[in-house]
């Protein structure tokens, strides 16, 4: 749940907010990440009016109210500002009409003023609210960036996730977070992973303890957040299980509704896991560029087979 207080505290500097009234409504929750300019609704047209949106009063709204007869002003304002209204913001450092301040105070609807221009305030506030409302989840794994690709390394504890990440770092790749990855859906399209502030850039290695990668290997080896491009699961080698041998089949995993490419690497002593991860990543990049090694090989193979068959037919 997002409250007005949270929004005010987080953005009072970026959006240059000051409080004008309705202080007792600061604990109100904002239910929709939507910002509305009530121009048409102020004129009395209230069809399809959603009263849970944040209202932004710009120059036109304020001058429209000021042009109304004083006895109509409160009427019009009370039809759009109700107890459901989470927040009213006056943009452009405008002086709000006294009726607006009064109705916000009496209904307990927070009234803020911003010095940003109306359009700028509206677009920035919408963007920031969408960020705050975007779904997040936590997943167990280590997030690294290899060749510019964000990879979550998953697997049961003690399968060697951190060790694999450490070898990747040693080869010049980057750590984002170890063990706990916070995942956020950005713009409804892609996923971004980051670590908790407290354990950022720290790793726990069996037999060594907690190490700070940024201090050990330098700032070049860490990043704060990274788009998640794939998930690689490390598994203890199981002789009975059939592992992918050709790579024609593409597996995906669902994270917050986004399909993320998924690979399983069986681990056993002597397998260089970091090298395997690097190879998967490079292969992924190649696929993104439009080249699929397995498919390309298969096409060549099919061509060879049909050529051989034609030869056989003609020689018969």
């Amino acid at each position: 749940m997002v409250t007005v207080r949270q929004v005010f505290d987080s953005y009072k500097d970026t959006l240059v907010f000051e409080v004008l009234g309705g202080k007792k409504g600061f604990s109100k929750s904002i239910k929709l990440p939507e910002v509305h300019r009530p121009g048409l609704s102020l004129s009395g047209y209230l069809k399809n009016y959603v009263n849970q949106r944040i209202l932004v009063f710009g120059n036109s709204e304020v001058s429209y109210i000021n042009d109304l007869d004083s006895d109509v002003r409160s009427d019009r304002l009370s039809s759009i500002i109700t107890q459901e209204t989470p927040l009213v913001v006056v943009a452009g450092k405008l002086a709000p009409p006294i009726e607006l301040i009064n109705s916000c105070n009496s209904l307990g609807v927070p009234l803020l003023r911003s010095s940003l221009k109306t359009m700028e305030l509206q677009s920035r506030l919408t963007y920031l609210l969408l960020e705050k409302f975007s779904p997040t989840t936590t997943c167990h794994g280590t997030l690294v960036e290899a060749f510019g690709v964000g990879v979550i390394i998953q697997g049961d504890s003690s399968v060697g996730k951190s060790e694999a990440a450490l070898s990747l770092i040693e080869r010049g790749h980057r750590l984002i977070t170890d063990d706990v990855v916070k995942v956020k859906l950005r713009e409804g399209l892609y996923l971004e992973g980051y670590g908790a502030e407290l354990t950022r850039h720290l790793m726990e290695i069996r037999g060594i303890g907690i190490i700070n990668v940024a201090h050990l290997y330098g700032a070049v080896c860490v990043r704060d957040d990274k788009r998640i491009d794939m998930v690689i699961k490390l598994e203890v080698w199981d002789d009975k299980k059939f592992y992918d041998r050709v790579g024609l089949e593409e597996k995906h995993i669902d994270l917050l509704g986004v399909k993320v490419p998924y690979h399983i690497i069986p681990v056993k002593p002597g397998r260089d896991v970091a090298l395997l991860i690097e190879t998967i990543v490079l292969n992924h990049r190649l696929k993104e560029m439009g080249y699929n090694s397995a498919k390309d090989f298969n096409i060549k193979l099919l061509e060879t087979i049909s050529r051989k068959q034609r030869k056989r037919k003609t020689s018969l």
Partner: protein
Amino acid sequence: MKLSYKIKVKNPLGLHARPATVIVRLIQDAKSSVSFTCHNETVNAKSIMGILMLAAGKNSIVRIDVEGEDAQDVMSKLTEVFENGFGE
């Protein structure tokens, strides 16, 4: 088997590095999966980093979820160390 139990952190310093080590050592061989939830944050309890990330102070409530064949055993071991404040 699936078990869930809410417990209060009793030791004065909260879940810092030493109690986290105690917890992980206790359950690292358990067959069950164990997770802790505190302040709306859920983490794998077999991971030191996970437990430390919770930054659970004294008197905070941690929900322990255990799922697996040895759940009963794991849960009783965990509640015991929480109850005696990790010997601190």
